[in-house]
């Protein structure tokens, strides 16, 4: 679904990512692990068109995607749930849910309502909160809303930036379970994390350090070999 070959990128005069090779296929759940400042957020922002690609190539869904505008990529099914959830505080839960889907061309009200019901089934707490302002949700609820808001756009690739950040264990488990389920139904899922909790549901893992991929292995291997992981993270 997504293939990065020798991708380099940066912001202004700073080069941040170097020679990144990374793939995520349909139905696969891939996690990129890295310490604070490793370049995880920049990696996702590069893929989603917010950061300029300076070398290499990115193919999304078989087509070259570097240089495309972020909103066009989002509409074509490359959905990025940003760091810090970015729930629009002055919109209600329901308006937050709809706001991405609303900008997809040819999507009728009925279809939006149908997708919304599906999200309420996935995360029932959102339904009970649907008329409340997004800003007054708890962290866990906001993360669920952020995931659901992305799913409303029917992604082919769902990217999540540190969804576990600041979540209680229970909320985290709910979200990880939902993501595992999505991958099983054929969606490509790419998440970046500092914590290893995502390894339990991931198929493959990359380790990112100082803007470069330094290790790549099946998630099970890293699960069983905490030493390797610690070695690369520091």
């Amino acid at each position, binding site marked *: 679904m997504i293939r990065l070959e020798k991708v380099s990128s940066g912001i*202004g005069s700073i080069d941040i990512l170097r020679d990144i090779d990374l793939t995520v296929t349909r139905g696969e759940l891939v996690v990129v692990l890295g310490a604070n400042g490793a370049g995880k957020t920049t990696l996702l*922002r590069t893929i*989603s*068109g*917010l950061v300029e690609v300076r070398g290499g190539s990115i193919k999304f869904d078989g087509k070259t995607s570097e240089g495309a*505008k*972020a*909103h066009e990529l*989002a*509409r074509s099914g490359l*959905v*990025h749930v*940003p760091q810090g959830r*970015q729930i*629009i*505080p*002055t*919109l209600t839960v329901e*308006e937050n849910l709809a*706001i*991405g889907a*609303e*900008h*997809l061309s040819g999507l009728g009200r009925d279809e939006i309502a149908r997708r919304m019901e599906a999200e309420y089934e996935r995360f029932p707490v959102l339904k009970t909160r649907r008329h409340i302002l997004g*800003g007054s949700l708890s962290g866990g609820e906001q993360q669920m809303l952020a995931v659901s*808001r992305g799913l409303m*756009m029917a992604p082919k690739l769902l990217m999540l930036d540190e969804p576990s950040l600041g979540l209680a264990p229970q909320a985290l488990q709910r979200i990880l379970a939902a993501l595992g389920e999505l991958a099983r139904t054929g969606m490509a899922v790419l998440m970046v994390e500092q914590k290893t909790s995502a390894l339990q549901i991931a198929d493959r893992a990359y380790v990112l350090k100082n803007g470069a991929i330094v290790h790549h292995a099946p998630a099970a291997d890293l699960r069983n070999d905490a030493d390797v992981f610690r070695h690369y993270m520091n």
Partner: protein
Amino acid sequence: MSTANFIQLFLSGLTMGALYALTAKGLFIAHLATTRMNFGQGEFLMIAAYLSMTLLLVGVRVILVTVLVIALLGLKGWGLERIALRPLDRLKSLVGGQYSWVLTTMGVALIMQNVATLVWGKSSQYSPPLFSASRDNVVKIMGVGVFVEELLVIAAAFLVVGLFYVFLFLTTHGRAVRAIAFNRETAALLGIDVTRTTVLVFVIASVLAAISGILVGPIVTVQPHMGLVFTVKALAVASLGGFANPLGVLAGAIIFGMAESFSNYFNSAFGDLYPLLVVLALLVVKPSGLFGEAKADVR
């Protein structure tokens, strides 16, 4: 003060308040959505007032005048974004700082003042009435004669404020504006075309200027320097409103309009001074505006 005087002053305060509200909303929808605003918002209003006056004087029907002036000003808003604002983003690393838009939009305002002086002359002019057959058409309210024109201007201004809220709260584009006001990158990730939405914001701000310009023509005198006064007063009104609460700007505008109307009655020489003093006094007591605890939003 007689009852008749009081009602007349009250209504003219309400009228000007409603018009300041429209100008203030034009400034601050742009500022909250893009962190810029059109410092020539008042000049846009002035141009709209002249265009409307000219068309009315040659006998074009009011409804057609309204459509034409709104369309022309909408086009001006689009042009302003393209010419005076967007290039600054591309050149950010080469020219001035973060506030170069202040200079470019003020520059456009100065050009418009000069163009207006060139085309329509320096002297003040009166625009024909919009709604009633003549300027002096009067109805009796509680035994007091009130200008029909003024009542209808108030009604129209509040109608437009209402429509503005309907747009922001109940339409897809309105929600897109609120999304880019929150965070432009997040909005883009949600499939919102940020560039187009920014253009839309400036078009809306100009349309608000167009409507206030059309409405203001018959109740004040039209002259090339009327714009700056509107911009300054709208800034004062918006700070009084705390830029945030949905009713804040409206309440601020009405307080301002009233203060102006009554102070002009008591002291016409310095009438314009007192409402600004009222704003200062209120801001000393409540620095964040009348309803100021709320978070910033395009409302």
